């Protein structure tokens, strides 16, 4: 995609490296407006519909804030309860309806492929805000933005993805995106939750160095970024086994004793106890900033898609 105007954002795989950089640079320019320091009315008169077929307060508020910071309007619903969807209306029909009321459609849905389907039925651009265990491209873009903004580059960055790499959609999309750049990746997970074969192959095909381990101490002192995800209890049939595993992936101060000075610890949030609260006060903690970056990145996408930024 050379011009973003009118395009759908369904999967990070639809982006080239140049597209990603375009979004990141545009997002950086959005920071003064995203933080309310500078007003912007470039999308005045435009309407974003936000269809949240499953609740995700964090993502929804981030999108709504982004649209309103650009002077646009927002309509939609935060969960399907009380809408015609509960009466059995198809997604296709709901999309046809909102397509007439708005200029861009943001969709969050519990079924994989829902955003692609919505894009088939909408004449207006569709942005995927997460579909089941599938894609969540704006999360991936804000993750990339956080790394790029924090370290000044993506090529040459040393990144460890930690936790549930098998089922975590965030780390799958992030792996796809990071392998567009010359990154050094480490996959840190218990053997039963390691990265799927397909994604490992994807990294190897690009000729990128890849390290796989179950022990976080193997990599922690070498990495620039530690991207932590939650290991869910439900993945383990035996609660004792879960407790044992989860404990070894918990990030706390003693574990960080010899890390790089500029280490960035990231997390897609919400976190439970995989990062100790004491880490929040260290300069390494970037997860709250990461969430805030979501507004600038979503502003960039909305602006590029709706023609606010040429």
């Amino acid at each position, binding site marked *: 995609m050379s011009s973003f105007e009118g395009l759908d954002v369904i999967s990070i795989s639809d982006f080239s490296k140049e597209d990603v950089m375009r979004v990141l640079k545009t997002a950086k320019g959005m920071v003064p407006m995203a933080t309310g320091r500078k007003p912007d009315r470039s999308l005045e008169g435009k309407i974003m519909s936000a269809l949240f077929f499953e609740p995700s307060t964090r993502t929804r508020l981030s999108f709504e804030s982004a649209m309103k910071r650009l002077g646009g309007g927002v309509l939609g619903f935060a969960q399907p309860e009380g809408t015609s969807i509960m009466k059995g209306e*198809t997604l296709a029909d709901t999309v046809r309806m909102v397509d007439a009321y708005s200029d861009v459609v943001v969709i969050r849905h519990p079924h994989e*492929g829902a955003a*692609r389907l919505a894009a088939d039925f909408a004449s207006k651009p569709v942005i995927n805000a997460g579909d089941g265990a599938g894609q969540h491209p704006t999360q991936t873009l804000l993750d990339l933005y956080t790394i790029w903004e924090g370290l000044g580059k993506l090529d040459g960055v040393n990144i460890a993805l930690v936790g549930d790499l098998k089922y975590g959609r965030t780390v799958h999309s992030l792996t796809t995106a990071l392998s567009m750049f010359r990154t050094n990746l480490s996959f840190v997970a218990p053997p039963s939750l390691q990265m799927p074969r397909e994604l490992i192959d994807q990294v190897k095909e690009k000729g990128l160095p890849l390290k796989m381990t179950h022990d976080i101490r193997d990599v922690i002192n070498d990495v620039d970024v530690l991207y932590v995800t939650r290991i869910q209890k439900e993945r383990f049939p035996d609660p004792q086994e879960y407790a044992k595993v989860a404990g070894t992936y918990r990030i706390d101060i003693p574990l960080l004793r010899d890390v790089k000075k500029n280490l960035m610890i990231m997390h897609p949030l919400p976190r439970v106890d995989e990062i100790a609260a004491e880490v929040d006060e260290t300069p390494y903690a970037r997860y709250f900033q990461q969430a805030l970056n979501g507004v600038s990145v979503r502003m960039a996408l909305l602006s590029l898609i709706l023609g606010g930024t040429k």
Partner: protein
Amino acid sequence: MRELRVQPIKNGTVIDHIPSGMALKVLKILGISGNVASTVTVAMHVASAKMKWKDIVKVEDRELNPREVDKICLIAPSATVNVIRNYNVAEKRRVSLPERAVGILKCGNPNCITNQKEPVETVFLVSSKTPLLLRCRYCDRMLEDVAAAIV
């Protein structure tokens, strides 16, 4: 070896060069069970110069639609489909794998949007021809058992 066991047909379709053992799957794709109006002949494990062993299916008084040919191609890429009219081969087609398989496969992911009550046909993109690997255009999952997913 004895002479041809399968007699020529007047009108219909001959599907030849089916990989040995796949003939019954071809019948399933064509929806052929006990109640067909015309004769269906199946030859299994026939010696073949080209492929050592092959299966052949002859369906009288029926020509296949493109979707049926696409489905056969998914399980029998080596097959040839000959349309017979008045004892002559009127059309000789080698099946070829399309870039995308539309409406002929069911996604194996129960959580895929195409498995909900939505007015869409499934679309699978061919990501590799040998071995045959197909990816759902909607949920991105690879199809694990192609033969079992044919609708």
